[in-house]
């Protein structure tokens, strides 16, 4: 672990999957079954992710930002959530979507360019639309948490964002509001070492977790490649939010094993030695080693997980490949509850043109 010398980091498993903090491991409220679920979710996430990268290469997705390497941070944190808790993702949280049982085909429509957002019924699913403007969603999470609190609901918001996102004014304003209003929100930063081509050292001069000092609530640094530690700190943060109305900033130290997105040429900036070093710290390998050493998984289980993962990936492919565009005429009803005259005129124009053109390729 690159930052092994860093005493501040929370870690339960070492890179070989050995328990380094038995007390913390003991304190986990996870049954064996849960531990297997964690592994399964990570494996599903990895497989879907790989499939999506492949789908993009084959032209089925326009662009795709892989999460590979960040499975433990995403799955561990998401697994800690209660059903009523609300997820505000950025654009890289397929692992969280997997845990939250989000319809991944609908999700991938975002990356195919067939719809924005990618989440069907965000309010019902407790999962916000994919948010592209970096850091902007941090404020939505705080607002939602304020609202839930006003309703006396015991629900928290968790917002995902990257290391680069901490440079934005919105991050600061969100944390400050959360501190002042004591809103039940968890700021979950996946520090994957890069913001496109900008390394953390050029992004900020302070450790991310320390930024919580500025807002009067706790900051925690966790080994983001350790799914148990990621779970544990998130769980603790959620408890603190629920019982003490105290927000938490979590810095999950992980690594972007893939390119920023499929459109990125990272050879220009990302040192291969660094990638290689992190390759050794693969979160799936680590957790599998742990489960095996604890005797919690057998080859049959691992096979089944592999099959499930492939099935899920295949179902994503089946759902998204070749999917037709949606009808722009319908979109005139998406903006507002009503369609005023000037808009109706435009809709009628496009409708007439489309009728004149006849059915498109792929529309059939």
């Amino acid at each position, binding site marked *: 672990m690159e930052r092994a010398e860093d005493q501040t980091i929370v870690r339960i498993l070492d890179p070989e999957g050995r328990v380094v903090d038995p007390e913390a491991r003991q304190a986990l409220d996870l049954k064996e079954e849960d531990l297997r679920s964690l592994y399964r979710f990570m494996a599903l996430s990895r497989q879907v992710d790989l499939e999506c990268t492949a789908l993009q290469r084959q032209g089925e997705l326009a662009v795709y930002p892989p999460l590979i390497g960040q499975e433990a941070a995403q799955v561990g944190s998401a697994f800690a959530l209660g059903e009523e808790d609300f997820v505000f993702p950025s654009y890289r949280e397929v692992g969280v979507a997997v845990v939250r049982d989000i319809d991944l085909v609908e999700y991938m429509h975002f990356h195919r360019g067939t719809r*924005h957002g990618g989440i069907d019924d965000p309010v019902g699913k407790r999962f916000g639309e994919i948010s592209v403007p970096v850091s902007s969603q941090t404020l939505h999470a705080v607002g*939602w948490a304020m609202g839930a609190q006003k309703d006396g609901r015991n629900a928290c918001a968790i917002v995902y964002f990257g290391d680069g996102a901490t440079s934005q004014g919105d991050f600061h304003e969100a944390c400050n509001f959360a501190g002042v209003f004591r809103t039940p929100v968890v700021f979950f930063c996946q520090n994957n070492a890069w913001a496109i081509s900008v390394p953390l050292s050029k992004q900020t001069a302070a450790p991310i977790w320390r930024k919580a000092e500025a807002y009067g609530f706790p900051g925690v640094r966790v080994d983001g490649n350790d799914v148990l530690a990621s779970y544990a700190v998130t769980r603790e943060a959620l408890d603190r939010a629920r019982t003490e109305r105290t927000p938490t900033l979590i810095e999950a130290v992980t690594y972007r094993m893939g390119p920023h997105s499929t459109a990125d040429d990272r050879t220009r900036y990302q040192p291969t030695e660094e990638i290689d070093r992190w390759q050794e710290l693969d979160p799936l390998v680590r957790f599998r080693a742990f489960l095996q050493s604890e005797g919690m998984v057998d080859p049959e289980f691992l096979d089944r997980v592999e099959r499930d993962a492939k099935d899920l990936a295949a179902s994503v492919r089946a759902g998204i490949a070749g999917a037709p565009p949606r009808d722009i005429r319908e979109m005139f009803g998406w903006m507002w509850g009503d369609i005023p005259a000037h808009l109706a005129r435009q809709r009628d124009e496009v409708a007439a043109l489309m009728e004149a053109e006849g059915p498109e390729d792929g529309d059939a």
Partner: protein
Amino acid sequence: MPEVTMAQAINQGLRRALTDDDRVLVFGEDIGKLGGVFRITDRLQEEFGEDRVFDTPLAESAILGVSIGLAMAGWKPVPEIQFDAFSYPALDQVISHVAKYRFRSAGTVSMPIVMRLPVGGAVGAAEHHSESPEVYYAHTAGLKVVIPSTPIDAFNLLLASIRDPDPVIYLEPKARYWSKEPGELEPNGLPIGAARVLREGAHGTLVTWGGMVPRCLAAAEAAAEDGVELEVLDLRCLVPLDLDRLIASARKTGRVVVVHEAPMTAGFGGEVVARVVEDAFEYLEAPVLRVTGYDLPYPPATVEEHYLPSVDRILLAVQRTLTF
């Protein structure tokens, strides 16, 4: 009949909305104990409690950003931004999310947010306190833009805005805050998107909104003394625009002058001209003209009357259309 100021009318509108709908929240900078720098939220915190009427930290992007989350949690946020120019730090949240969230969610998540914003000049204020930013909003698809010019309209359009399931930018012309109108503050069902003919006339139409309405009425009165009857159309809403009334008036008079405070270039006047030209071209007797603020940053207060459309400038433009 009792007289009310626009400031009182908006205050009453907020009170009404807070009373009738317990999902309404009012917040912003200094809107609690102080009652806002214009006292528009006077006593609301006292009456409805800090849970529903609250001060926020000094951060406009946050004010709009948390409004989005609150909307997703089922609330109806009615944030106040203190002055026109201080809405700019929130433009990203407004353009990228408030305006787009429903569209992004394929129509499933609406954003019933009403952003209240004092705008306009002619109040002797310092830099950044007299701007007319309506175009930034009107051009952003997904936002409705409302701007009343009288107390009764302000009251009713506020209620309509809060009723509306979609985001409304509710612009309050500061120069009109202390204007009075006799009338009852009782909901009259006025919808968003209806312009109002404030004065009828056959020889020309003045199209305007917000703080410029009284000047246009004054110009019309002055013109009437010379036998020129001007129609004055108060748009009241820029988006959606009341095309029917606008075009009807343009067709009727054949001469149209648009008057607004914002700079001319790419101002909303251009939209009005383009609509009139598209739908009333054959009725036009003269070019549709614009009388606007000049293409400068809003100037120091002591020269603002040279900057803003004056009755004289309006009449000169009318004259140009009459003698064309």
